[in-house]
């Protein structure tokens, strides 16, 4: 049975369980509902949950595992030289075997026997059943396809049987348990609590998933390119090597120029965003009238909601060429994808981010400090500069670090506006490239999955994750300590 129909059957069983259990509970109560511990629908829910949940869990787990298992079965038939082929070719072969299996399944078993015995070409036979094959399948492919069909049949039978068994057992046992002593509501609420807890652990699972998924590929990468060359290398030149390349033509994967580019562009972005965002936040919370605030705040929030690709596009079609033309008009050579272009536009993107974080931080400083300063005869600006900002300093630092983390991880603006060549230049009018640009470019080419060219993207991703992890954790702890201090 397919997963969809199995799912439907289990759900139907659940509904049955609900109805029967509720009815049983009602008859037990015999017209006096207060003799039961819980309200009627809890009994029904109790039975329904015990029917549906174990079965659904089984179906879900197997739905994730089945493709892997079946692929394993298929690959056990593949000879060594096929397994050694590149990833796209293997995907094609898998696809061929899949179509073959599909076609064979449409034929009656004796038809297949006859064809194989008589060595008639299967291509024609399969075409009559609506399955198009490019060429006559090889012997190992036929064997693989037949085994695949067998394995699929077993798998489907197995999961159907198991799921239905669990569902029916669950239904029967839970209905039988419906009696006056059953604290149905408690049981149901325990199940709901378990559900809530598992939802909470998704966050941890995601982080673990991120780390593990990139870790494997990164280790794979380090088996081909030494970690030292990666972390300390100063040249980035990942030539896509042809098959059978020697180390002379292999690429170089030095992280340092990418780190430099990322840091440089982020620094420019922060240099724009922090002063502007901080001053805007100060003005809005300390000086602006209610009317001004009610207009400006939503507009700044609007800036925050603009997707980064729009900023990237803006830099690409307007700001970059503008700077380039401006430069050429005064005789200075400015690249259209210079550090200044990408950094400035990224800074504009970060302004509302810095502004809203700073606003929170400034408002956390208690009013009594301001009153104390104003009471001594200080002007508003003196109060802000000498009392409020120093008091808010940890929070502001936290905000700047979070903005830095955002800048470092930013992708679309730099993909569209920054350069591609890994330059280690100090000149802000020249292009540099960043870690994120390289992750995108290494993975949107031709995917030869086990080559260092593609695996390096994961190493880069893991590096990026750790850098932002450190920044985030530090920044968040600084901000939290700051807030606790004033609360």
């Amino acid at each position, binding site marked *: 049975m397919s997963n969809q129909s199995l799912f439907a059957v289990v759900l139907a069983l659940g509904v049955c369980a609900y109805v029967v259990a509720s009815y049983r509970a009602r008859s037990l109560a015999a017209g006096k509902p207060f003799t039961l511990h819980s309200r009627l629908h809890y009994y029904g829910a109790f039975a329904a949950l015990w029917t549906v949940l174990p079965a659904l869990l089984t179906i879900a787990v197997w739905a994730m595992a089945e493709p892997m298992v079946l692929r394993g079965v298929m690959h056990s038939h593949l000879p060594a030289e096929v397994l050694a082929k590149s990833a796209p070719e293997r995907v094609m072969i898998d696809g061929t075997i899949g179509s073959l299996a599909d076609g064979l399944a449409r034929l009656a078993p004796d038809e297949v026997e006859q064809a194989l015995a008589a060595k008639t070409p299967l291509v024609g036979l399969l075409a009559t059943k609506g399955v198009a094959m490019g060429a006559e399948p090889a012997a190992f492919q036929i064997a693989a396809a037949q085994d695949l069909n067998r394995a699929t049949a077993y798998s489907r039978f197995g999961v159907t049987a198991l799921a239905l068994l669990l569902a029916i057992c669950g239904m029967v046992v839970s209905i039988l348990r419906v009696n006056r002593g059953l604290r149905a509501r408690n049981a149901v609420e325990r199940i709901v609590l378990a559900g*809530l807890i598992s939802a909470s652990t998704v966050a941890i699972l995601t982080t673990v998933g991120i780390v593990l*998924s990139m870790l494997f590929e990164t280790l794979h990468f380090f088996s081909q390119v030494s970690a030292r060359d990666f972390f300390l290398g100063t040249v980035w030149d990942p030539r896509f090597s042809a098959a059978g390349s020697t180390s002379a033509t292999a690429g170089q994967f030095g992280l340092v120029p990418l780190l430099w580019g990322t840091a440089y562009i982020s620094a420019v972005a922060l240099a724009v965003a922090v002063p502007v965002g901080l001053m805007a936040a100060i003005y809005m919370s300390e000086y602006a009238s209610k009317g001004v605030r009610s207009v400006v705040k939503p507009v700044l929030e*609007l800036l925050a*909601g603009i*997707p980064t690709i729009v900023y990237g596009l803006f830099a690409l079609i307007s700001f970059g060429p503008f700077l380039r033309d401006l430069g050429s008009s005064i005789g200075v050579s400015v690249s259209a994808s210079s550090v200044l272009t990408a950094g400035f536009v990224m800074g504009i993107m970060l302004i509302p981010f810095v*502004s809203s974080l700073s606003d929170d931080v400034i408002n956390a400083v208690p009013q009594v400090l301001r009153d104390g300063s104003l009471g001594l005869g200080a002007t508003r600006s003196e109060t802000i*500069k000498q009392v409020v900002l120093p008091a808010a300093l940890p929070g502001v630092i936290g905000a700047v670090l979070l903005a830095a983390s955002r800048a470092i991880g930013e992708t*679309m603006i730099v993909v569209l506006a920054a350069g591609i060549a890994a330059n280690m230049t100090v000149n802000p009018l020249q292009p540099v490239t960043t870690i994120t640009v390289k992750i995108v470019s290494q*993975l949107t080419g031709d995917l030869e999955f086990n080559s260092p060219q593609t695996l390096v993207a994961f190493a880069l991703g893991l590096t990026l994750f750790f850098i*932002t992890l450190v920044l985030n954790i530090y920044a968040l702890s600084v901000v939290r300590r700051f807030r606790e201090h004033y609360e």
Partner: protein
Amino acid sequence: MTDVTADGVSGTSSITTLDPAIAARRLARRRAAEWRFQAYGIAAILFGLFFVALLFAVIGAKGWTALLQTQLTLPVTFEKSVIDPNGTSNHDDIMAADYTSLASAALYKRLGISPDDAAATALADGLISTGSDVELRKVVLDDPSVIGTTRTVTLLAHGNVDALLKGTIDRAVPEDSRQIKDQQIAWIDRLTAGGSLAKTFNWGLFTRGASSQPETAGLGVAVIGSLYMMLTVLAIAVPLGVAAAIYLEEFAPRNRWTDLIEVNISNLAAVPSIVFGLLGLAILINLVGLPRSASLVGGLVLALMTLPTVIIAARAAITAVPPSIRQAALGVGASKMQSIFHHVLPLAMPGILTGTIIGLAKALGETAPLLMIGMVAFVVDYPRSPLDPATALPVQIYMWSNAQERGFVERTSGATLVLLVFLIAMNVIAVILRRRFERKW
């Protein structure tokens, strides 16, 4: 206030005993500093506002023309000999017929050129879009009775014609460096004057799929793909996020494990989006084997990305409900779970809703993670299920921005306008909801 110190050098201890001239000067300096400080604040705000305006102006100016498309209106004769030569109304014949020749024939007739004039016909063919055969075929398939008749049909003009009429191709440039030749310009002017050639609202921008020609390219697939993804995000991130928020706010004990969960959530909210794309690539595509370019995969990745945002917003909304409500519910005998689901959650709903809409808006605009999982496919037909290949709005913008043809520059900005309109609408709805349902406890 008398001075305690007799030494005049060390200064005075009261403002009334300061030298008035010095005091006045100092005061003036302080006032000036105050004024300057306020000016910096205003300048900062204006700086931000200026760039919002500039962004919209630039994109609007370059993109609004994408809402118009040049179309040719001609009487086309649906020659039976071309469409259904065998007279059998065979579906395959109809599908494979040479509709381009029918369109060309109609154009030659209108322009008054002989079909034998090779040079002229070549130029004339450059006025019609290469996608016109599909359009004519659709007319026939919709209504086979047109075979053998002459009907007035509206066809897409070639991208170059569109570019000329929108001013992107400059007439003043010498003919050799132009893609549109003088003779074609003459015809175009004649057809425009005669009313056969006109710019109409470009519905195709919203209904068509990917294409290598700018005039037949549209956002239809991208919009449907984004829609599927938003639905997936809604179906996954919201229940999970609210459930997690409820647990963390109401039930979780304060121990190391829950601290770890909280640190994790705060960190995940700040992880670069491209990392989620790598996660999707490594696990969903390589390990589990889901199809590349499927909107389900994109939706799952975006859901994981939006989850921390929803959790944080839901927690804030749940915390805002005062404890008196919970205590009142418990006081009448409700269980903790009941007090939460029957009382606290409904009151926290507006806040959760607003947070969800904002999270969805962010997810709608995300490009990087989708690039990683391969949603850069060239998809012509609408995806029929979330497992079919599709693309997303921001990814389509990215792909068009890489294209070289002139017409795509306009489309890129036009698509950006569409995206911005969607996003502004979502944010405005969120703000309105927040204002309407905001309760001051």
